């Protein structure tokens, strides 16, 4: 089963994303901040990460930078979750190697489509 790590400090967003992904057949793990995300990935590298940009403590961009500089996680697909007001972060996210981004508020159906698209793109490379 394809595993996805959802990283967001907002439990409502985590609930929505987890439910929709599980319904679509993914195995979902959750982390509520950057440190927890780093720990989760160190335990087991997921097939894809949905990563919120704005989080308390270590930000999503910082987490992404650390993953990209680590050989074991450099190629791990990451989709950034960002609020409408933080669209500037999207550019920075792409510079750091994000594979795609989703702006909140989001369409759950579109989110699943993006996850599937990024995974199939990675598999075909």
């Amino acid at each position, binding site marked *: 089963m394809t595993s996805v790590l959802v990283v967001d400090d907002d439990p409502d967003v985590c609930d929505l994303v987890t439910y929709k992904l599980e319904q679509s057949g993914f195995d979902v793990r959750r982390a509520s901040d950057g440190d927890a995300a780093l720990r989760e990935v160190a335990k087991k590298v997921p097939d894809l990460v949905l990563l919120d940009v704005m989080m308390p403590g270590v930000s999503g961009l910082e987490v992404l930078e650390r993953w990209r500089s680590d050989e074991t996680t450099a190629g791990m697909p990451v989709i950034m979750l960002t609020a409408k007001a933080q669209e500037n972060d999207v550019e920075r996210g792409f510079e750091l190697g994000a594979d795609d981004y989703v702006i909140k508020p989001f*369409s759950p159906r579109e989110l699943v489509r993006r996850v599937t698209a990024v995974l199939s793109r990675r598999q075909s490379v």
Partner: protein
Amino acid sequence: MPAFPVAGFLLDVTGAGAALAVILLLGTVAARVLRALLSGRRARAEQMMRPMVLAVVSGGTAPAALISARGGLGRAAERIAFAYLAQVRGEAAVFLADLLARRGTMGRLLRLTHSPRAHRRARAAEQLGLIASPEAEHRLAELVTGDHNPEVRIVATRALGKTGSAVAARTLLHSLSRPAPVPEGVVASALLELGPEAVPGLRAELAGGRRQRAMAANVLGLLDELPAWEGLVENVGSGSVEVRASAVRALGRLGLPQAIGPVTACLDAGEDPALRAAAAYALGRIGDPRSAQSLAACLEDPHYWVAHNAAMALAEFGGAGVSALSLAAAGLGSGAAHAKEALARRALARGERPAAPARAAPSGQGQ
């Protein structure tokens, strides 16, 4: 024997203090226990309702237990539905709004917008903005223009921005002409929140009243609405400085070379300094070296922002702009300081070391 009554008094005071401390302690413990019980009950209610609401988000049929839930369970269902509604868009938002309508929540909120208490009206307005049904939108429009409390009007304006409705744009723009309107920044934020949905209304209002035209021009520029450029150019030639400056700034943000002619014309010395400063800024954003000569002529302008914006704009042009700035920087006129600042900023932005300022001549020399 004066010591004995004093000791008795002290004993009485100590006893009363101890009793008071015990009462306070018991009160605190009771309050904490009560809070924990309520919080536990609330968590259990949310745990029970959450899967049902999540199923609705995914397009599942709302079970009767969710539609008819009242009391603590009903409140939990609504808390969850509104929390999710703030995070989703598209069909998921429609499913949640439908759930709230079937539960009678929307009717209750519409009634609450008539409450004599301002905080209740504001809260209801905020939630109606998330539901974003036509009825909700209609009532929000009434609150934006008609509520006697300015804070409720502000909340209703923000809520209207969240509805994503094309009609809301014109309502928001027209609210600017009402007595004691909502602050322009709040209206602008709400229009930006509407995003592309606001564009038809904004473009139509480029031919509206003065305040509507100025706001529409500003927001169209912020939304990067390129097809609006001709309407903006028409407003550059209008009678109001506020409207003209807004249109000029918007054209600058769009960055279209087609706007160079009308914008450069606004640099004319006979124009209002605010408009000329806006034109200099806009020409820098457009970044076409053909306007370098007109901007260089503004470097010695007595109005600070005209000269400053002209220098910053020239720094964007590369060769032609830098030559004009270097020439001005070597001179003794008032434009030298603006030119030096612009050149230094340009060097820093390119990761270069700015040129050192010329040393003052030792006393006795150069006189």
